[in-house]
């Protein structure tokens, strides 16, 4: 059950044109820890309608972008989206049960310095020992704020202040797929080998992206990291482990 305390549209959302084929809906109150449930519900509401001409629905932090096909939009896109949001508010107050309970995804991570190649240096920066850093990273439940940078790359937050780490000034040419990193308030997993500047503290044996199942994560998911040892990592890593 979600209660939507929306009194009037103006108080809740700003609608902004993004050029001639996208439109941005932004929460006027901004980001306030986690992804706003109303925004998640709005994204689900728009998805459910399968509106002809809406090509992409992209959720990120405190905003939602609709990419549309001009040929399918005869009307003013601003007015159209305004109406869409009004419909959502009306619908939501009629039958409150918009099903948007977020999933909790548990991710096994091996925090061994052989895989978490920055772990030792990171502990020094955080002014603690490795065990304390792992304890901090695994004790919290993170929210997926958006996906980007690479297919399946989930930006999760918020990392506890104590273990927030700066990016490497010079990104590495290759970070191995599955590497778990921290950059400032965010933590994330590299879905494939790629260049990257985040501090790498561990690696998951899970394959978080493939071209058939696509992404393990979506915006709004809750994520918990569970520590595993090197033996279990190798065992899981050798399996055809899809999620």
């Amino acid at each position, binding site marked *: 059950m979600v209660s939507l305390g929306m009194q009037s549209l103006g108080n809740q959302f700003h609608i*902004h*044109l*993004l*050029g*001639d*084929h*996208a439109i*941005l809906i*932004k929460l006027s109150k*901004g*980001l306030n820890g986690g992804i706003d449930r109303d925004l998640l519900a709005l994204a689900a509401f728009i998805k459910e309608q399968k509106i002809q001409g809406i*090509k*992409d*629905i*992209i*959720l*990120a*932090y*405190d*905003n939602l*972008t609709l*990419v549309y096909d*001009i*040929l399918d*939009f005869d009307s*003013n*896109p*601003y007015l159209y989206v305004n109406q869409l949001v009004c419909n959502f508010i009306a619908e939501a107050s009629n039958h409150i049960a918009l099903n948007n309970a977020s999933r909790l995804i548990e991710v096994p991570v091996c925090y061994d310095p052989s895989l978490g190649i920055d772990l030792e240096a990171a502990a020094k920066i955080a002014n603690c020992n490795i065990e304390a850093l792992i304890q901090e990273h695994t004790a919290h439940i993170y929210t997926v*704020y*958006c*996906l*980007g*940078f*690479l*297919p*399946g*790359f*989930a*930006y999760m937050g918020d990392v506890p202040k104590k273990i927030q780490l700066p990016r490497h000034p010079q990104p590495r040419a290759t970070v191995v797929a599955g590497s778990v990193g921290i950059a400032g308030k965010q933590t994330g997993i590299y879905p494939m080998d790629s260049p990257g500047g985040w501090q790498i503290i561990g690696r998951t044996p899970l394959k978080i992206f493939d*071209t058939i199942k*696509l*992404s393990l994560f*979506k*915006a709004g998911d809750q994520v918990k990291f569970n520590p595993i040892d090197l033996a279990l990592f190798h065992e899981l890593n050798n399996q055809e482990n899809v999620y």
Partner: protein
Amino acid sequence: MSIKIIKKGLSDRIVDQGRFGFQDLGIQPSGPMDFLSAQLANIILGNALNHPVFELHFPASTFEFQEPMHICISGANFVPVINEKSIALNTPIQVYPQDQLSFLQPLEGRSAYMAFKGELDENKKWLNSYTSFQTTLKKEDHFSIKPVSLCDGLVNSVEHDLVQQVQKTLFNEHEIRFIPGPAWNDLTPVSIQVLMHQSFTIDAKSNRMGFLLEGTPIHLTEPKQYVSSAVTMGTLQLLPNGQIIVLMADHQTIGGYANLGQIILVDLPRLAQLNNHSHFKLSITNVQTAHQLYRSIQSWFIH
């Protein structure tokens, strides 16, 4: 085997008109740099507008055909030759087994498109059509294509006018139009003047991900952190050093830099055909005009 690469080009690949619906997973739609030329090459062969085509950049790959089929090359003029004999652009060309297609010099434009009349083996669908997961074409790559014969009379039905209209749209000196974005009002008045009047140069580091613009640095009235949100092809992002980058076909799905605006769809093909070191000016338009222009361009392709 129907088409084989016998010499590697700089950065050639297969594209369709882009795969939307996955940007929420961080997967960019990709698609062609110049959608208009890709559509033109397809329509000349009687293909669906969204049919896969080869996108070529100079120096382009050399192709060898293994079955008789029809092809059509549109967009940039790299002086295409078959077995060293020059062939026309924007015209169906019959090729035969062992024919070799190569490109001699970059006369005009940045991206050329080669359409083919036939069905591409879809088993490699991900690799072939999602440029996100595709590496550029290399020597010995081959594509299984089931040739389809050209409809009789089709060539005549494609009007000469259409080719002329597309060429005029692509290759001219007009300003590139954009619609101001969420961070527009955060610019200093001086920077707005600079944006509206200066001639920007396309930096040599530009590629399918984005065109980096050289020019007088642009500034915000005060430093500001923006919450990341989705970006599109044509988004003008202001980098912290005051430079602008225009996001192109292989842009990331999400951006956190100041979003100054979006270049309108109809002007993207023209921008995409500009080579490094060429210049252009920006001007402001509105969404109504942009939609009208886009509808009018797409109506060229409806018979």
